[in-house]
């Protein structure tokens, strides 16, 4: 989750779910009902979920990986929706979906709206807060960290797009993480920028770059935490 958009929530939740599905039956749930980035990342844009007696059947991406998304209900249609309906749409998607997996990864929209309130209602959860190192994004994300602290949660902070290679140098296109956050005492994971990622939009399940290696490390941290 992140109050800030465009920091990599969808990419990271996808790669993380792929990594987790090596060992666990994993369901990836897309709660970003306007953007629906996940079906686009996995190549299920415009594909409809099948529906059975048990409800809406998530897409089976791999042996142990499934995906539930509003995209599978509305096909490629634009979902423009008044705020007053958003909470119930998310709850209906979760309620009508046939969910049986051991591990669920939720991809949330930016902002601090219904999605967090809905999550709090339906389950206990481990928050992974994503940001990039830019001063602006970090300031925005601090609100969310404060809120989670008040709720007694201990989030993992993921600093995505932290650095990249430019020839033989390492550059930091969004600047460096400021110290205020480092001082918060959170567990922090820095992730690199990978320009090859863009080629895997539509087939992210085939991505084998170094972000995926990082995700295997991240899943061990998560396994620890969930114990």
């Amino acid at each position: 989750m992140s109050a800030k958009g465009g920091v990599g929530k969808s990419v990271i939740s996808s790669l993380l779910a792929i990594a987790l599905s090596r060992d666990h039956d994993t369901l990836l749930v897309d709660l970003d009902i306007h953007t629906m980035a996940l079906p686009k990342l996995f190549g299920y844009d415009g594909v409809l979920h099948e529906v059975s007696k048990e409800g809406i059947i998530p897409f089976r991406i791999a042996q142990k990986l499934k995906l539930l998304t509003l995209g599978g209900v509305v096909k490629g249609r634009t979902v423009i929706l008044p705020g007053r309906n958003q909470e119930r749409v998310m709850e209906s998607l979760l309620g009508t979906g046939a969910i049986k997996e051991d591990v669920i990864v939720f991809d949330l929209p930016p902002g601090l709206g219904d999605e967090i309130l809905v999550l709090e209602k339906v389950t206990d959860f481990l928050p992974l807060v994503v940001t990039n190192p830019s001063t602006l994004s970090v300031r925005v994300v601090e609100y969310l960290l404060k809120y989670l602290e008040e709720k007694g949660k201990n989030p993992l902070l993921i600093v995505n797009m932290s650095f990249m290679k430019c020839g033989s140098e390492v550059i930091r296109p969004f600047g460096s993480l400021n110290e205020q956050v480092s001082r918060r005492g959170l567990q922090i994971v820095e992730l690199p920028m990978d320009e090859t990622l863009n080629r895997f939009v539509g087939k992210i399940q085939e991505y084998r770059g170094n972000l995926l290696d990082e995700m295997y490390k991240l899943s061990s941290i998560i396994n620890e935490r969930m114990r």
Partner: protein
Amino acid sequence: MHEWSIADAVVRTVEDMMEGREGRVSKIVLGVPRISFLDVEILIEAFDELKKNTSLSDSRLEVNIREPSFTCQRCGFVFHLNDIKSQVDDLRSEFGEEYPLHLIPMLGPSFLTCPHCGSHDISGNDDIVVERVEIESTVKPS
């Protein structure tokens, strides 16, 4: 088709509500918006099957099909399902039986527009809700 999953949700919801409470449930009234085109017969059949071996085994499901009126939040126009029949028909013929408002009725504003001004900002397309639970006291008159 997914009426069975709805009936299942009703059973679980009402069982949760009754946890730690006295009395037996005799009747459950489920409000369902007309626009969802849910099949009432299947809903009741599914409920009667799923209630077996639960604390709701003696209860009856009643389905109340509601015809809400819609109000456009932009221009104030009030209208009914009839006034947007062609929009709904188009949607059903595009998507088939499991059309979006059948699965998630609250998606209404994404697919429907005000017949007067064209805005998507419409309210009144109600949700599927347990409207009433009737409980019979187990205490016998002595």
